[in-house]
């Protein structure tokens, strides 16, 4: 499989490196954004909180270190640097987190960059306590997952769980951002930025590369298996995205509906209240018009002013009736001299400054006037009033004074404004009036203790944006911070025929509260679904991995079995089995091979004389299965040259190239020797039968033919011829008999009837000489025998036969030597003892040396021999594992037969003779 194999380990490291790089990159982008005055780069959105410069530095360092560690895990120096960074980072995160949770912020976090203001109620440029906590988590995971801890499964498990926790936190934060409802906004704490959450997701992946269970990372994968893994991861990512998007769409839809409902609600409240206020105002004016141009009341007042008895009582009765009937705070009459003449209730309270300032104008007014909300005197309580000028009906309508119906807004107006159709924690109706360059809030505020009419806001600012917009004539729904700076949604409008502007508003937080609940449910749901997805994929992966491991195990077992079998076979065969690489260098050899060649053979170039007949590169299919046979001589470890029969086959690798050869070799030296001996015996046998048939036939031909002559000669009565014929017949018969005798002797030699024994040379020679004594004496040969104490080892009777034949032979071919002499002796030639029988007879024609020892070979046709004698000699010598050769200086100059015999043991044969 080679390069096609990938490992989940490297796969994991690649993902981890990518995660770390992402985190670092996000940090760099945020820093660059701050440096370039583009904080949006650190925030990802207009009203989202940006990543603090300190956070960015953290990500830059952590991401960079994690990336470097995953790429160069073996670098010791890097390990130290990482340890320093994570130690420092963890300490810093602890300090920052503690401070941030008590809302203490360090200026140093901004790295001297100019930044101020708040987003979502939190100061910009500082690390969120949650972010600090997450960094703490990262540090803990890093320390727990150090290589040193590999053997502490509990710590590893903790690290892995904390990594998952980090992933969960960042995932939830990111999901909330994605759904447009970021968490922790306006909570009083700094929320983690969207980029921060993303970067933490990257860090989670990077940490997984260290902290994930080892079994996830170590398995080696085949290409197809890696493909499965990629499919699984891709499937989980796609499914996760689908789930997230589905949740997002659902949330959006729900949020829109909710917002529309809220707007409807606010608008309805605003419109209803505006209409009611208008009605109320006109009613109040209507109350006033009771006294305007009312002649009866004017007359009564006139009389009362003139102190007509009873009239003052009547006026007071009237005033009290009006006050109680229409719920006025106080109804009083101010006479021309700006004095209160009659009042209900009748107490001595003086008229307010506000009224006195406008007295003349009001006195001249053409009808009742509604005095808008005001303070009776600076710092006094808020009032409204209806002022009605009262004129003398008789005397040219001269003004008598001012009838004032004072309204306490607490009685009806304020409670009415404070009413809200449903329970709400933040809903409020505000009444504002435009005043020079600003607006003034007319009713008491729900969330601020300032008395009515005291809170004034400039038109230009951002504060109380909806009220300002209302005062500027906007209608409909607007958003913005209210007088507290809290973002609200408000329906704004104008009260008809009044200088009043109405703001019906609610905190955005309250409006979004049910959405937030839904968001949490959704986040939990989406997270759960994604986790289920991941878990499902994990289960599939686990099953696949188990199957894969099982397959690997099976394969390994099969291989093991195969190798055991192979080992057994190779141990059992007696042959040499040898493997070479493509350069014919021996790479492996079995035990018989080691025994033959020795240890040095492995690694040595094996010169197989029958070079496998192929090119070293491409091997054609024809040659692939070919077994090449050859024989060659090889030097064995002990130095002896042995004949090996080789059978070689190529090893072809997957790419079809020659990978080497496997050869077996069998030592056939002994076999070959036996074969050769057999061949020799066979030849001899053939020659034997051939010769026997020829040599036995010859006398037969003679006998039968001369029998024919005998017959005719007898008929003719030629006695001399008959005797001649008979002589031929007798001679032929004798020859036949002799031939048969010697053949019998020869056949006995090979059969080794007798056991070997040690016998002195002297005794053997004596026996042989006694057997040939007759012929020796007849020819008058002088025989000399060595006195060397040589001990022979062999078949005694054969040895005797050997010397007998040689002596016989010597006597027979003594020629015409007048002083015949035979010498029997020995001499040492190296390790060997050579024996010899030498004569001074006829000698041997050197041309015929080769035929000397052949069966039935006769060199002298006149001799009476059968040609078996020397063949017999040779056979006896061979049976005793010796060799024999003859030497002669030529015809008539004597001959010598030399031979060696198996001497006892390895010792000197002369010993112990």
């Amino acid at each position, binding site marked *: 499989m080679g390069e096609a194999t990938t490992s989940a380990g490297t796969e994991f490291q690649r993902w981890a490196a990518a995660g770390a790089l992402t985190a670092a990159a996000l940090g760099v982008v945020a820093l660059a954004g701050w440096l370039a005055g583009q904080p949006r780069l650190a925030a990802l959105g207009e009203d989202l909180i940006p990543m603090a410069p300190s956070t960015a530095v953290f990500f830059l360092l952590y991401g960079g270190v994690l990336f470097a560690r995953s790429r160069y895990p073996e670098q010791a120096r890097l390990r130290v640097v990482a340890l320093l960074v994570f130690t420092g980072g963890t300490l810093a995160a602890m300090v920052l987190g503690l401070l941030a949770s008590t809302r203490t912020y360090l200026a140093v976090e901004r790295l001297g960059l100019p930044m101020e203001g708040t987003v979502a109620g939190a100061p910009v440029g500082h690390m969120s306590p949650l972010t600090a906590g997450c960094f703490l988590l990262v540090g803990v995971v890093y320390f727990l997952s150090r290589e040193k801890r590999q053997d502490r499964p509990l710590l590893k498990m903790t690290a892995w769980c904390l990594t998952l926790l980090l992933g969960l936190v960042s995932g939830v934060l990111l999901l909330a951002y994605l759904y447009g409802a970021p968490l922790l906004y306006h909570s009083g704490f700094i929320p983690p930025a969207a980029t921060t959450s993303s970067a933490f997701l990257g860090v989670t992946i990077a940490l997984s590369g260290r902290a994930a269970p080892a079994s996830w990372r170590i398995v080696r994968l085949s290409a197809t298996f890696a493909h499965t893994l990629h499919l699984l991861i891709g499937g989980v990512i796609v499914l996760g995205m689908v789930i997230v998007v589905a949740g997002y769409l659902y949330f959006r839809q729900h949020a829109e509906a909710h917002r529309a409902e809220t707007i409807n609600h606010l608008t309805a409240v605003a419109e209803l209240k505006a209409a009611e206020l208008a009605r109320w105002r006109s009613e109040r004016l209507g109350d006033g018009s009771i006294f305007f141009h009312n002649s009866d009341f004017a007359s009564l007042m006139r009389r009362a002013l003139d102190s007509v008895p009873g009239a003052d009582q009547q006026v007071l009765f009237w005033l009290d009736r009006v006050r109680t009937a229409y719920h006025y705070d106080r109804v009083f009459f101010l006479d021309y001299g700006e004095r209160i003449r009659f009042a209900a209730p009748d107490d001595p309270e003086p008229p307010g400054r506000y009224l006195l300032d406008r007295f003349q104008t009001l006195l001249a007014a053409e009808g009742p006037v509604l005095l808008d909300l005001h303070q009776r005197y600076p710092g006094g309580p808020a009032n409204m009033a209806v002022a009605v000028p009262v004129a003398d009906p008789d005397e040219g309508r001269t003004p008598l004074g001012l009838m004032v119906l004072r309204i306490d807004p607490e009685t009806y107006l304020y409670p009415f404004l404070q009413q809200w159709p449903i329970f709400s924690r933040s809903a409020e109706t505000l009444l504002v009036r435009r005043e020079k360059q600003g607006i003034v809030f007319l009713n008491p505020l729900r969330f601020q203790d300032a008395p009515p009419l005291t809170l004034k806001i400039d038109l230009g600012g951002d504060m109380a944006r909806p009220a300002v917009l209302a005062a500027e004539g906007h209608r409909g729904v607007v958003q913005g911070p209210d007088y507290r700076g809290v973002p609200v949604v408000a329906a704004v409008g104008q009260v008809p025929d009044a200088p009043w502007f109405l703001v019906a508003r609610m905190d955005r937080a309250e409006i979004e509260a049910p959405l937030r609940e839904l968001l949490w449910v959704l986040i939990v749901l989406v997270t759960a679904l994604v986790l289920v997805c991941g878990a499902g994929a994990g289960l599939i992966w686990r099953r696949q991995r188990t199957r894969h491991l099982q397959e690997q195990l099976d394969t390994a077992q099969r291989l093991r079995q195969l190798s055991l079998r192979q080992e057994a076979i190779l141990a059992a065969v007696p042959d040499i089995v040898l493997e070479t690489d493509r350069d014919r260098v021996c790479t492996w050899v079995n035990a018989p091979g080691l025994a033959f060649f020795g240890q040095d053979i492995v690694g040595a170039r094996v010169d197989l004389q029958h070079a496998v007949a192929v090119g070293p590169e491409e091997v054609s299919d024809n040659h692939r299965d070919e077994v090449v046979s050859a024989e060659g001589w090889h030097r064995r470890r002990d130095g002896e040259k042995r004949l090996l029969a080789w059978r070689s086959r190529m090893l072809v690798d997957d790419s079809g190239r020659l990978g080497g050869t496997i050869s077996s070799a069998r030592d056939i030296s002994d076999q070959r020797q036996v074969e050769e001996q057999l061949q020799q015996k066979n030849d001899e046998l053939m020659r034997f039968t051939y*010769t026997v048939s020829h040599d036995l*036939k010859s006398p037969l031909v003679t006998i039968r033919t001369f029998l*024919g*002559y005998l017959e005719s000669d007898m008929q003719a009565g030629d006695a001399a011829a008959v005797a001649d014929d008979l002589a*031929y017949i007798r001679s*032929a018969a004798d020859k036949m008999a002799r031939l048969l005798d010697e053949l019998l002797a020869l056949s006995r030699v090979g059969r080794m009837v007798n056991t070997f024994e040690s016998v002195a040379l002297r005794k053997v020679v004596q026996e042989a000489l006694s057997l040939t004594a007759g012929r020796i004496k007849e020819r008058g040969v002088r025989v000399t025998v060595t006195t060397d104490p040589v001990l022979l080892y062999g078949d005694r009777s054969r040895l005797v036969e050997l010397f007998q034949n040689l002596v016989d032979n010597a006597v027979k071919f003594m020629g015409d030597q007048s002083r015949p002499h035979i010498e029997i002796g020995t001499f040492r030639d190296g390790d060997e003892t050579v024996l010899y029988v030498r004569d001074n007879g006829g000698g041997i*024609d050197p041309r015929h040396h080769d035929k000397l020892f052949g069966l*039935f070979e006769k060199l002298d*046709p*006149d001799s009476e021999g059968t040609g078996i004698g020397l063949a017999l000699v040779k056979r006896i010598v061979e049976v005793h594992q010796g060799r024999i050769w003859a030497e002669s200086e030529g015809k008539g100059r004597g001959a010598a037969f030399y031979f060696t015999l198996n001497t006892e043991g390895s010792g000197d044969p002369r010993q112990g003779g």
Partner: protein
Amino acid sequence: MTRGKAVKILLVEDDAAHAEIVRRNLRQHRVANRIDHVADGQAALDYLFGADGQTGCIDGSPPDLILLDLRLPKVDGLEVLNRIKADPRARQIPTVVLTTSAAESDLVSAYSNGACSYLVKPLDFESFGSLMKTFGYYWLAWNAFPDGDAS
């Protein structure tokens, strides 16, 4: 006989009895005028090509026919045949193998070494006689020889 000149046969035969038989038969049937008998291969070669300072008969009066046994002492019959056929002077002398061996290998070797004919010695008296008679007529009466002087 056709040529009316004396016919000389060289008989190479190690077995004295066989030589006697051949001689008797040839004489009986008046096949040859002269029969020279040698007993071994070496002697035959010496007879033809000379040895030990003596000149062989090949340059003077070569035999008209050679009767050759195969199993011969010293120098084998086949070797003798080979040497005869290798010598340009002796090559044209018809050489007839007369032996007791009927072995196929001997037959093949003899012919491939230039034997003109291969005769197996019959086992009985009559057959031997008729073989020698027929042989004599065929080779010496009917068979034409190159002129001896031409060589």
